[in-house]
């Protein structure tokens, strides 16, 4: 069963052919099946069918059209002519004997080019004579043949235009005479061996005259025309035709208008060759009319207004198409005119040479293009280009949609005129004029479509004659068929005949009402129809017209300037299309962004022109090379601006809002929104016939850029100390957020994947990462030795003496702003924020560390630190032995009777390690490092707890945990936990549903929910890293227990022993407190509070806390001071004035001791809380990094094997 064509085609439209691709490009390819309706596809062979005796005319038209076609080819040969001489090699002296060979080769090369020129010379001679003959034939006053028709006029004008163009091109090419003279020289050399060269020589001389004479073609044409003095008439007619067409804006397409403008002056010059002719011409056409035509006002900056546009697109489809064409024609025409204006007015003084590094010479082309357009003008040009291209592509896209509607409308117009209007005319004003009414009926005969008008078909013949009949409007069924070019051609001819009566000398315009005896109304109607007819052809020629009107290739061509500048090609900066692209990138104007690909359409057009019109392969190659370069540049720059835009948006998003609000100039942190998403959707960009997936290219490059950025941030961190970890985290956050924003439009690799890749953290069996090992290296080499703790502020700061590593660092790499936050202001803001954290290490840094290295590498670093503690403990022990040896065997309680001064003296006597100050310093340093490590762990503990708590708060509702009235955690009964029951309900619902195909996967999901429930519930009781560290330290100390803690032989507390660790620490503490006092608190800075942390921890873990509190020198000293103070206060209670001065000199020392006691007490209380000595419990951390809940374990080092080894 056959399916009707229409139905089949209509079915195709039901396919969804939508993709996400936005229309930000013009059309790259035009599909046209008409062979240009404007020129008859059958070369007017069908005209003869209408029996209008137009044979001669048609033949002439065809002859002229062939000439026009040939002429265009000649013109493109001339236009693309490039000097050959420049490319000719020079022979070195050593090869002079081969000169003859070179001449021959050169001659052969040049001969080919010269033969083309010779051809042009011959062609122009024959064309001129044919044109002149044609004009003479059709300008005889006696009119033996019909014609010339309007089509004929156009052909004559076009041929004339071609000749003018050829002449101009010939004049402009200085390289042609150059090449020719070279050719002639080689010819004389080569032809010496030849015989019979006279004719060739003559030919050469002819060609030389032709080439060296300016305006040779026009002079020749003039001579040809006035050989017989009969062409003035037709010249005048042509001038009138030109003037009227221009005045009435008769030419729909801008190329036609430009052609008329070019030809008119030449016609006037030709027509006024003698005074008599000039007089007669100016009698017909006033000179002022001519002058006013050339007062073309060219806009300095072409501004097309949207309001105008929106107003202009109203109306029905036909009008819309006409208006679309007019609009396109006007816009493109303006671009041409703007271009011409710019070419004729080169920039006077190009931009100051400093931007070009001192080169002061400019090509002419740079003067007229590169420096000649201001930024506003570039913007305007680009906007206009986008208007033209997008309107053009919209029109082109609806081509097949509107085609039959257009045909129908045109059919209706024609039929309405020939059937109705002519009918009326025949019956009224032309009744008495036999000749004229015959023309009218001819018009009807050759174009009326009676059959489509079924209602009046049978009576139409009567209607012609029966005058009395009521003139009723015709009802005819419009046919979606348009008239042919021949029909239009004949109709135009007949209308001309009608109004002008074939009289070329008729004064006034074509439709100037004089002498033809036609009523004004009719004339008006005829005139309107006449002009409409010429519009019809362009509309029928829809695709070709759109193609012509949106062709912007001319913006690239620059042969004229290449010739004068003597270079092969200009750099792309001089190229207008690239200038437009660059303008978008530089200005970062959000409105222009989507037009960024429009300039590439200019390249597409230019390449098309090079191949099909100019037919020059080398031009295409040049364009292709330029496009390749431009596109690469575009990609690179586009990538940069996209990345920096998203970076700055992310940075501005993440900036603290309250901070911005309190900022005076908060506007600078606001990022102007730009719409990149349309550009990011472009999967096929048409470029020189290739289709390029811009999106994938951008994705590729952005992926790379993000990786580079991560790498850069790590490099930067590696160049700074541990405090920069906050900055690193900030920047990684920004990067992550911008990745997030980008991922909405692009399919990027996942951020964590890229981060892991850059962290070299992909291996499943390695727990270290680039970042973790960097942090550890920093801690080991810089942080532990050089940072001191302040217990009150919970911060580590760099000690004054300890900056010895700073100079060894690699310098911090600098980079483009988009590797930070994208814009200068945001960079500054973030820099200031980071600077606040750059001088210390505290809780924020710990948060950053935990977040950056994550649960995966955290155990690794904990292990490394614990090992460090163990190493340090092992280092301390022998040194402590050394100090122990220096102490007296037994140390008793300090006697109270000596008073403060006395006890200080006794202590000094007891501490007899004065010679071992180096050993002391080493012990203190090691203690400080151990203390720092322990405190670091406590900070880590704090942070992990906070994170755990947050996570718990988030998961608790899902696990069915809630706060009871008593503040304790309650749990709902096990069958009712929210997460599990949710999945269970969903599962039963789905499984019970009939359409469920595979219930198994839902069962699995339910099982997984149950598992998740269990796992998360177990995590609630999380363990403490600090407790673990303390237990570890304790285990490390255990094997030295006997040396550091002498078991009392008696079983009672041995108060005189000096072997216990607390004695050593006590002595050390007393001494450095004294030093603190002596050196006005400078020394104190060098150790910080971590010494106390380490000392107290070791004392506590050795079980010597009570001993320490009882027998510490400082504590005893304080007690003595108190007692003394009280006693003195008691005895001297009457003398208040002395009281305050009594302990002078000891005040500072006592204050320091009190401070130390407070600190020690703080540490001890913390230790008691976190590490009760009664049962040694701690936690373990599993491989996965998840802490295991509290376990009791045997206190040996092997218990810590659960932590990953540092080397792993």
């Amino acid at each position, binding site marked *: 069963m056959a399916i009707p*064509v*229409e139905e089949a*085609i209509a079915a*195709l439209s039901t*396919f969804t*052919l*939508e*993709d*996400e*691709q936005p229309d930000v490009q013009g059309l790259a*390819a035009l*599909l046209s*099946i008409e062979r240009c309706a404007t020129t008859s596809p059958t070369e007017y062979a069908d005209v003869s*069918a209408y*029996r*209008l*005796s137009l044979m001669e005319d048609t033949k002439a038209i065809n002859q002229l059209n062939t000439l026009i076609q040939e002429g265009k080819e000649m013109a493109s040969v001339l236009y693309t002519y490039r000097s050959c001489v420049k490319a000719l090699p020079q022979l070195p002296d050593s090869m002079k004997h081969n000169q003859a060979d070179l001449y021959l080769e050169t001659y052969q090369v040049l001969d080919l080019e010269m033969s083309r020129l010779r051809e042009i010379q011959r062609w122009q001679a024959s064309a001129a004579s044919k044109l002149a003959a044609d004009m003479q034939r059709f300008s005889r006053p*006696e*009119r*033996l043949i*019909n014609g010339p028709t309007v089509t004929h006029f156009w052909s004559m004008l076009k041929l004339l235009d071609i000749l003018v163009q050829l002449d101009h091109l010939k004049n402009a090419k200085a390289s042609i005479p150059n090449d020719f003279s070279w050719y002639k020289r080689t010819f004389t050399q080569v032809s010496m061996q030849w015989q019979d060269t006279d004719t060739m020589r003559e030919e050469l001389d002819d060609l030389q005259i032709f080439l060296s004479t300016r305006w040779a073609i026009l002079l020749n044409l003039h001579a040809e025309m006035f050989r017989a003095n009969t062409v003035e008439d037709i010249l005048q007619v042509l001038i009138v035709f030109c003037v009227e067409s221009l005045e009435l804006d008769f030419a729909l397409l801008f190329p036609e208008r430009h052609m008329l403008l070019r030809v008119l002056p030449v016609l006037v010059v030709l027509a006024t060759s003698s005074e008599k002719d000039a007089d007669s011409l100016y009698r017909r056409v006033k000179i002022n009319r001519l002058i006013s035509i050339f007062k073309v006002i060219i806009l300095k900056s072409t501004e097309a207004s949207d309001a105008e546009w929106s107003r202009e697109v109203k109306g029905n489809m036909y009008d819309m198409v006409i208006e679309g064409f007019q609009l396109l024609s006007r816009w493109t025409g303006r671009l041409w005119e703007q271009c011409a204006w710019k070419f004729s007015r080169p920039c006077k003084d190009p931009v100051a040479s400093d931007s070009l590094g001192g080169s002061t010479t400019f090509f002419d082309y740079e003067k007229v293009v590169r420096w000649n357009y201001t930024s506003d003008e570039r913007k305007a040009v680009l906007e206009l280009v986008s208007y033209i291209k997008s309107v053009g592509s919209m029109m082109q896209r609806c*081509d*097949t949609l509107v*085609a*039959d509607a257009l*045909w129908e409308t045109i059919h209706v117009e024609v039929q309405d005129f020939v059937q109705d209007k002519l009918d009326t005319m025949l019956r009224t004003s032309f009744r008495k004029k036999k*000749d004229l009414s*015959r*023309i009218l009926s*001819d018009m009807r*005969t*050759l*174009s*009326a479509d*009676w*059959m*489509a008008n079924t209602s009046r078909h049978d009576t139409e013949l009567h209607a012609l004659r029966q005058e009395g009949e009521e003139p009723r409007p015709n009802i005819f069924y419009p*046919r*979606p*068929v348009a008239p*042919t070019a021949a029909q239009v051609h004949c109709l135009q001819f007949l209308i001309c*005949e009608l109004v002008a*009566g*074939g*009289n070329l000398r008729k004064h006034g315009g074509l439709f100037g009402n004089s002498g033809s005896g036609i009523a004004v109304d009719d004339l008006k109607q005829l005139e309107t129809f006449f002009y409409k007819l010429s519009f019809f052809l362009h509309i029928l020629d829809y695709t070709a017209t759109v193609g012509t009107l949106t062709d912007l290739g001319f913006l690239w061509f620059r042969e004229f300037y290449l010739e004068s500048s003597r270079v092969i090609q200009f750099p792309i900066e001089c190229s207008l299309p690239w200038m437009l692209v660059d303008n978008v990138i530089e200005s970062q104007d959000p409105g222009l962004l989507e037009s960024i690909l429009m300039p590439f359409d200019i390249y597409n057009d230019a390449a098309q022109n090079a191949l099909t019109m100019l037919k020059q392969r080398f031009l295409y190659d040049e364009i292709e090379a330029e496009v390749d370069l431009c596109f690469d540049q575009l990609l690179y720059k586009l990538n940069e601006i996209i990345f920096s835009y998203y970076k700055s948006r992310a940075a501005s998003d993440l900036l603290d809002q309250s901070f911005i609000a309190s900022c005076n100039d908060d506007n600078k942190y606001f990022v102007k929104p730009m719409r990149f998403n349309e550009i990011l959707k472009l*999967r*096929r960009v048409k470029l020189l016939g290739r289709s390029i*997936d811009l*999106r*994938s290219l951008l*994705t590729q490059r952005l992926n790379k850029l993000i990786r580079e950025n991560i790498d850069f941030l790590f490099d930067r961190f590696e160049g700074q100390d541990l405090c920069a970890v906050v900055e690193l985290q900030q920047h990684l956050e920004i990067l992550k957020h911008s990745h997030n924003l980008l991922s909405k439009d692009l*399919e990027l*690799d996942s951020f964590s*994947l890229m981060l*892991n*890749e850059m962290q070299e953290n*992909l*291996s*499943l*069996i390695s727990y270290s990462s680039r970042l973790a090992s960097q942090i550890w290296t920093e801690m080991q080499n810089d942080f532990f030795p050089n940072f001191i703790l302040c217990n009150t502020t919970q911060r580590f700061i760099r000690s004054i003496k300890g900056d010895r590593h700073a100079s060894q660092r690699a310098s911090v790499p600098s980079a483009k702003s988009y590797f930070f936050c994208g814009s200068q202001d945001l960079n500054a803001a973030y820099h200031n924020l980071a600077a606040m954290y750059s001088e210390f290490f505290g809780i924020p840094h710990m948060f950053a560390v935990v977040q950056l290295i994550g649960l995966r590498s955290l155990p690794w670093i904990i292990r490394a630190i614990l090992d460090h503690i163990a190493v340090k403990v092992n280092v301390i022990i022998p040194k402590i032995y050394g100090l122990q040896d220096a102490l007296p065997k037994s140390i008793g309680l300090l006697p109270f009777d000596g008073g403060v001064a006395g006890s200080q003296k006794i202590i000094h006597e007891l501490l007899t390690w004065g010679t071992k100050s180096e050993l002391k310093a080493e012990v203190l340093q090691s203690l400080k490092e151990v203390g720092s490590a322990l405190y670091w762990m406590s900070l880590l503990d704090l942070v992990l707890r906070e994170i755990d708590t947050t996570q718990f708060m988030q998961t608790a509702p899902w696990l069915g945990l809630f706060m009871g009235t008593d503040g304790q955690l309650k749990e709902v009964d096990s069958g009712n936990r929210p997460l599990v029951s949710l999945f269970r309900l969903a599962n039963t619902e789905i499984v019970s549903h009939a359409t469920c195909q595979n219930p198994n996967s839902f069962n699995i999901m339910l099982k997984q929910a149950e598992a998740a429930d269990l796992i998360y519930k177990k995590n609630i009781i999380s363990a403490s890293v600090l407790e673990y560290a303390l237990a570890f330290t304790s285990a490390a100390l255990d094997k030295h227990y006997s040396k550091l803690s002498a078991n009392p032989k008696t079983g009672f507390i041995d108060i005189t022993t000096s072997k216990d660790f607390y004695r050593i620490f006590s002595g050390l503490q007393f001494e450095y407190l004294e030093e603190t006092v002596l050196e006005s608190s400078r020394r104190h800075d060098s150790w910080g509070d971590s010494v106390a942390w380490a000392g107290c921890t070791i004392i506590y873990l050795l079980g010597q806390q009570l001993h320490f509190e009882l027998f510490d020198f400082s504590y005893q000293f304080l007690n003595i001071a108190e007692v003394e103070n009280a006693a003195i206060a008691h005895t001297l209670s009457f003398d208040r004035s002395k009281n305050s001065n009594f302990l002078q000199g000891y005040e500072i020392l006592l204050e320091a001791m009190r401070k130390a006691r407070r600190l020690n007490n703080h540490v001890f209380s913390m230790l008691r809380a976190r590490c009760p000595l009664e049962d040694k419990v701690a936690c373990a951390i599993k491989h996965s990094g998840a802490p295991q809940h509290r376990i009791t374990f045997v206190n040996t080092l092997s218990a810590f094997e659960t932590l990953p080894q540092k080397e792993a």
Partner: protein
Amino acid sequence: MARAGGITNAVNVGIAVQADWENREFISNISLNVRRLFEFLLQFEATTKSKLACLNEKLDVLERRLEVLEVQVSTASANPSVFT
């Protein structure tokens, strides 16, 4: 008036013109539909291309992810002792 002549055989020409209109209606109908077919093919090609590109993009992402996983697995299988 110097007119060289009008239509010499008006009736015949009229009949021929009428036939011509009808023939041309047929021709333009065919040609328009051929053009629509072409247009469909062009659009079809374009959309298919971008759909394929879309698919390709997703495959690319998967491929890269798979590569990473492969590397991870290879590190694991190179050291089987860790997992025993």
